[in-house]
């Protein structure tokens, strides 16, 4: 008896390893192709299949809502998920693995940049078909992409720089309001700012300028925190930044010219999926470039030992300043995007609950890691949508999960891992990838 009970986890583990090995030859492109097949299948056969299985409609968020609301439909939902997602992805990835691998290595040798673009196109295709099923999916996807930008921008400060900043909702509010004021003032006839000043057709072209302007306003706001708090370290920044968040919120609440507590509405609908996808890719690309350069790594040096960084010619004050402003800038951009996705902002959005959400995404996903931020933002956003039917219990389950993550992985799920795009798009040659140190794979220069 004892022997078998000891053996079973081991055999489970070896089975899991065998399973992983079975799929280890599949490059990223193979998974994307599998996903594309799955979403196409859902697009064309989803509704009849759902009816056949007794489901009212296509399960929107992987069936979580249906499962939680009507437990009787669990078998149908599980079969649906298996038929539409799991099997097609697995079969396509496995069967076409070697063909796609050859394609990937050809692409990679041709030009890594081109290969990255192909991957992104496929990912975009997948997302747009997936979100085409329902407006709810589209909104969830858009909010998730924005969450990725926000989480990354906060990770620069809380993860890479190792300070504890609580002002991110404030920066988002500054960006959201600045961008909204620009677009409402210039391109829309509305009740707050009156008639449009510029022809409406110019709007979409000027929108990036409005967003960047919002980011810059947020960065200017960040200076107000950076100057007094960078003389000291630790708790002071947390307190000052928390105060900043409340100041921004109550300032906007009392500014009648931007609608006060009622907020601003009827922003033009500029943020469609391709725009948002491009902005997210740009944010990930630029932030990842920064944190992998020596100038960005200086943040880690300042965090781990400031005196040593100083002695190694690192201008610590400038480093912290730049990182803080950079993080605030992207928070501002994300705020602007959020305002134009919801097409409504009010100061109440950017309160303590937003802060808790953003912090949860950073610490859930993993400090000091672009991977972690993406995983944290996507995971948290989807989870919080999926658990929505549980209503109040959602706010018990999510914190509980966070506590568990903090107990078993105090720095988050995927912390201190470098995001190397070249490794990601590389063809998979050997069956087992060598797991090196916690730092992740060996850096390979392109």
């Amino acid at each position, binding site marked *: 008896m004892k022997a078998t009970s000891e053996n079973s986890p081991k055999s489970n583990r070896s089975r899991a390893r065998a399973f992983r090995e079975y799929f280890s030859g599949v490059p990223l492109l193979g998974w994307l192709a599998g996903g594309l097949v799955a979403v196409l299948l859902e697009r064309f056969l989803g509704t009849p299949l759902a009816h056949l299985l007794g489901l009212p409609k296509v399960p929107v968020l992987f069936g979580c809502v249906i499962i939680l609301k009507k437990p009787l439909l669990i078998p149908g939902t599980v079969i649906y998920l298996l038929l539409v997602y799991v099997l097609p992805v697995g079969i396509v990835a496995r069967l076409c693995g070697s063909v796609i691998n050859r394609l990937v290595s050809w692409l990679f040798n041709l030009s890594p940049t081109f290969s990255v673009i192909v991957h992104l196109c496929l990912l975009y295709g997948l997302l747009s078909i997936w979100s085409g099923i329902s407006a709810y999916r589209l909104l969830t996807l858009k909010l998730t992409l924005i969450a990725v930008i926000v989480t990354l921008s906060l990770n620069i400060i809380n993860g890479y720089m190792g300070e504890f900043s609580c002002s991110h909702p404030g920066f988002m509010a500054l960006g959201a309001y600045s961008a909204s004021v620009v677009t409402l003032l210039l391109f829309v006839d509305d009740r707050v700012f009156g008639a449009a000043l510029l022809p409406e057709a110019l709007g979409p072209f000027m929108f990036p300028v409005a967003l960047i302007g919002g980011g810059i306003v947020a960065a200017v706001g960040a200076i107000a925190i950076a100057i007094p708090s960078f003389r000291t370290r630790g708790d002071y920044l947390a307190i000052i930044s928390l105060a900043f968040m409340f100041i921004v919120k109550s300032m906007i609440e009392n500014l009648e010219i931007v609608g006060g507590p009622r907020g601003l509405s009827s922003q033009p609908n500029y943020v469609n999926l391709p725009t948002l996808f491009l902005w997210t890719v740009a944010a990930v690309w630029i932030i990842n470039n920064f944190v992998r350069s*020596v100038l960005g790594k200086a943040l880690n040096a300042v*965090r781990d030992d400031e005196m*040593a960084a*100083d002695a190694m*010619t*690192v201008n610590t004050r400038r480093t912290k300043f730049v990182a803080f402003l950079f993080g605030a800038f992207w928070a501002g951009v994300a705020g602007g995007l959020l305002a134009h996705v919801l097409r409504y902002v009010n100061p109440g959005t950017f309160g303590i609950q937003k802060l808790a959400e953003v912090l949860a995404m950073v610490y859930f996903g993993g400090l000091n890691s672009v991977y972690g931020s993406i995983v944290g933002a996507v995971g948290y956003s989807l989870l919080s949508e999926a658990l929505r039917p549980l209503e109040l219990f959602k706010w018990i389950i999510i914190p509980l999960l966070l506590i568990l993550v903090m107990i078993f992985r105090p720095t988050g799920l995927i912390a201190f891992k470098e995001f190397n795009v070249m490794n990601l798009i590389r063809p998979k040659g050997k069956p087992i990838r060598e797991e090196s140190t916690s730092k992740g794979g060996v*850096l390979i220069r392109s």
Partner: protein
Amino acid sequence: MPLLEIKKMSHDFGGLRAVNGYDLTFEPGQIRGLIGPNGAGKTTIFNLITGIYIPTEGDILLNGKSIVGLKPYQIASMGLGRTFQNLRLWRHMTVLEHVKMARYSKINYGLVGSFFGTPKRNREEAEIDDLARSLLELVGVAHLAEQVIVNLPYGDQRRVEMARALATEPRILFLDEPTAGMNPEELIQMMGIIRRIHNELGLAIFLIEHRLKVVMELCETIQALVFGEVIAEGTSEEIQNDPRVIEAYLGKEKIL
């Protein structure tokens, strides 16, 4: 003109005079040592020169220009590289990243390059990479370049710290007890590295040591410091036979 000249430098911690009237004239290519019992003020002198503390009195001239009051990173980029008595490494970074980080002030690609991955950035990062690897080769830890620093044994961490200091392109290298906590074998290797650095790169080296053997073997000129004051200066033989040094280390001979 001497490389580094210190005139009548003093420093007070509150009411305690930690360093009193310290003088130093450092010529290019010299190896000098600073010895003294615990608490004599050796590390304080290093911290004063490298800008972590600002001297209460006196002047520090690097190539004839005063560096008093400059920030530590400015002094470091002017050519004063250093290591620390208790290793000060960045525990989440790899060995290679440590050495590359010390090139911070020599980087020209700027923020635009770091954001957008311009060709200039890639070229410069590649150059820094090569330089860092060659320095790691020099101190004998090139094979550990991709490891996270905390996975290295103590002796190798010391070597990385040395390579990191060298990457700042110092004209004088300040080594604060480079052999502290080392076993005899590691000690001999470390002395070999210091000699190699001195011979191959022609660097001036200023060494704090507890172990007299190391200082006596390596240094041309030695200062002995007791309670913040230099009590003797000279070659290793002179220092070894100086009655004041013997007194400071072993106590006064008492005849009953």
